[in-house]
């Protein structure tokens, strides 16, 4: 059974890839990268999902046999944090580029100037 998450994850990855390939503004490229990352995270989470079961928080009425797989969720938690860290680094590099060249258009900053 192919779920809706499958199409959603692929669509998000493709939207992000389109932004990276076509857009000329550096900030838009970074936004595309973030969208792509969201798609990959959604894919991992939905692979761990078991239909009809609830979140892996064992409370009343939810035993070990009624919960979904906790490991993809824990891994995606790690991936989100790493994504925030890399996005912060990329944004600060973009700020430096803007200070040096006065533009964020990648066609104008293609050649490195001394």
């Amino acid at each position: 059974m192919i779920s809706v998450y499958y199409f959603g994850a692929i669509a998000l990855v493709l939207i992000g890839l389109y932004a990276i390939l076509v857009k000329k503004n550096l900030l838009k490229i970074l936004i595309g990268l973030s969208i792509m990352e969201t798609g990959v995270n959604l894919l991992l989470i939905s692979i761990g999902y078991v239909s009809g079961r609830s979140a892996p928080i064992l409370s009343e009425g939810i035993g070990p046999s009624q919960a979904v797989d906790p490991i993809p969720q824990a891994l995606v938690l790690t991936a989100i944090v790493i994504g925030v860290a890399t996005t912060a680094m990329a944004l600060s590099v973009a700020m430096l580029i803007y200070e040096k060249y006065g533009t964020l258009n990648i066609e104008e900053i293609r050649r490195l100037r001394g």
Partner: protein
Amino acid sequence: MMKRLLAIILLLIVGYWLAQGLAGVPFGQDKMLVGQYYLDNVKQQTGAVNAVTAVVVNYRGFDTLGEVTVLFIASTGVGALLWKRKKKRSAKTEGSIVLTTGTRLLVPFVMLFGTYIFIHGHLTPGGGFPGGATIATAFLLLYLAFITYEIPHRGFEKTEGLAGMGYVLVGLIGLAIGGYFLFDWIWQTWNFGTENVGRLLSGGFIPIIYTIIGIKVGTELSGIIDGMIKEEVSE
């Protein structure tokens, strides 16, 4: 135009390849191997109700230490990239009355909510990373509303370092008591909170570690905001 067409063709190829590759993966079916073991034993072994936090802090605590290190390196990297000799905030316009009044009202509650998220990490969805991010949004609000606001740098840097050392210290105490790094001595040796699993005072060292992580992430993300929002001033 040509570039856009080429991009769309490439997207179609990549999309077909992804769809083809993922068509063999069964969605929504039970295929747990290790996960079922964690779910079966999480209450007895860690005392946590939330299995995700137990995996992050107990079963993969070393991994989380590496994750905190990555965040620390990123924060240091942003600081190094945006380092200036003389830095000051160069915002010209004061925040509007809605923003300033809303900030005055909301900041304590945003901080309280972040604290709630990381203290209750072993019971409800959440934990140190989302809680710390929520606290950092409170500082972002302060930065947006008041043009002269600055975080207390010295205190923040010391808190960040102390929180990082606290995590390693908790792990080393476990090494001394139980024989391996990040051994959950509060749960395994003292049996603290055995009778009230599912309440606040349980979960072994998960609340302690998540408090440390929450403080560290909150101060680090506030430091990143501070580094990005300031500009060089020429004398």
